[in-house]
């Protein structure tokens, strides 16, 4: 636990001093939303707020990819790995600290992105339920951070890691996005999908639990050498 706290502090401090990830993610989110806005046809949005809410999730996934590709970049570029691995700290603590930092970065980015999303897309139509959207985003962020930190660990010693990480990551996003979109879009105007809000949020929590356990158990093998 002490190792976890120290590692998390290191990750947050590095980001605070360097400010290389969060500003980039914010700029990316802004750019992506403007792109979506134009891509869907300028002034009036084809498909209205339903389509916009769906696309918000796509933007969320791509933004999180940005965070994951840079995950462990400091460790790699400045040779911190060897130092980290020579400490007696539990390997899972490295993963947990990295996942927590990624989760915080994602949540921070979305705290800015969500008002922008409202400004760009939701003024002209019915908005999805904001509490549900926020809860779904936080649960999804947690899953993305835990799974993504494990995959980023895998990609550390791999050729062409910037390309490979998204390829490894995207299949895992498909069930998450499928449910998250249905969950949030259904709060705009309920469809007969048979998906209750509690079911949808429960699914996201289950997703977090499964990949949390897998990440915690498997990370040790990823960094062993």
């Amino acid at each position, binding site marked *: 636990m002490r190792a976890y706290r120290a590692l998390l502090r290191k990750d947050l401090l590095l980001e605070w001093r360097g400010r290389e990830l969060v500003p980039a993610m914010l700029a990316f989110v802004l750019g992506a939303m403007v792109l979506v806005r134009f891509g869907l046809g300028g002034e009036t949005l084809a498909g209205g707020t339903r389509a916009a809410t769906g696309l918000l999730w796509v933007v969320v996934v791509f933004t999180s990819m940005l965070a994951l590709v840079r995950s462990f970049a400091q460790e790699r570029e400045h040779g911190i790995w060897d130092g980290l691995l020579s400490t007696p700290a539990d390997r899972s603590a490295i993963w947990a600290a990295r996942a927590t930092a990624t989760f915080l970065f994602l949540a921070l980015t979305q705290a800015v992105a969500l008002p922008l999303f409202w400004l760009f897309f939701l003024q002209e139509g019915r908005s999805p339920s904001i509490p549900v959207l926020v809860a779904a985003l936080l649960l999804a962020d947690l899953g993305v951070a835990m799974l993504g930190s494990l995959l980023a660990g895998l990609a550390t010693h791999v050729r062409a*890691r910037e390309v490979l990480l998204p390829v490894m990551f995207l299949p*895992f996003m498909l*069930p998450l996005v499928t449910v998250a979109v249905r969950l949030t879009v259904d709060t705009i105007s309920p469809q007969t999908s048979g998906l209750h809000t509690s*079911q949808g949020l429960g699914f996201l929590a289950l997703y977090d639990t499964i990949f949390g356990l897998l990440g915690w158990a*498997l990370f040790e093998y*990823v960094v062993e050498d």
Partner: protein
Amino acid sequence: MVIGSQRARPDGATVAATATAVLMALALGMIFFYVPTDVDQGYSQRIFYFHVPIALTTYTLFVWGAVNAARYLWRRDQSLDLKSYIPMHLGVIFGSLTLATGSIWARISWGHWWFWGDTQLTTFLIIFLFNCAYFMLRFSVEPGERRATYSAVYALLGVGLIPLSVLGVRFAQRNELIHPITFNSNGANMDGSMFLTFLVALAAMLSLAVTMYLVELRGKRIDDRIRAIRRLAEARA
């Protein structure tokens, strides 16, 4: 000495290949000459006897690969890495065949090559994408212990992905069930002769997978051995 003893007793691959040839011939005979034509879908329904066994074989191969991946992480035996990789590799081949046969069948009976509303189709696509990513990962790492470990870790993540995909896609679809329900809690939802044909076709497909597995395993092992011998020869020279 070793070669002599292999000649005396037929090895696993030969036995499996013979069994596959017999079963496959039997299955083809039953599919085209024995089983009655489906009342609703007509002649084209016969692709069912290819499509469903191939899909089930793909799932089996995947589970097989994941089980051996877990065993590899447990025991650290390099041969288990091969035994995990080969089922995943064959899974991509059988997976492509499932998507192809399913697509043909969908075109004939539903009128579209692809139908996003269908749970099984979408789930299968996710698994297929996962399998492709497994390959990309495997071929981006130098051969050796690290590659074996990374492949095993990724294969085990798939064990989490598949049930979640089934559940998630089922939740999110608007209960559009156009995929024929072949099996339910009351057992097989088909005629006795159809079920028998299906079982034979399934056995044929599974034994084809086993044969391919044994042949590829042997090839890979010979490959490794030749490489070791070459290294030894170079060291001597």
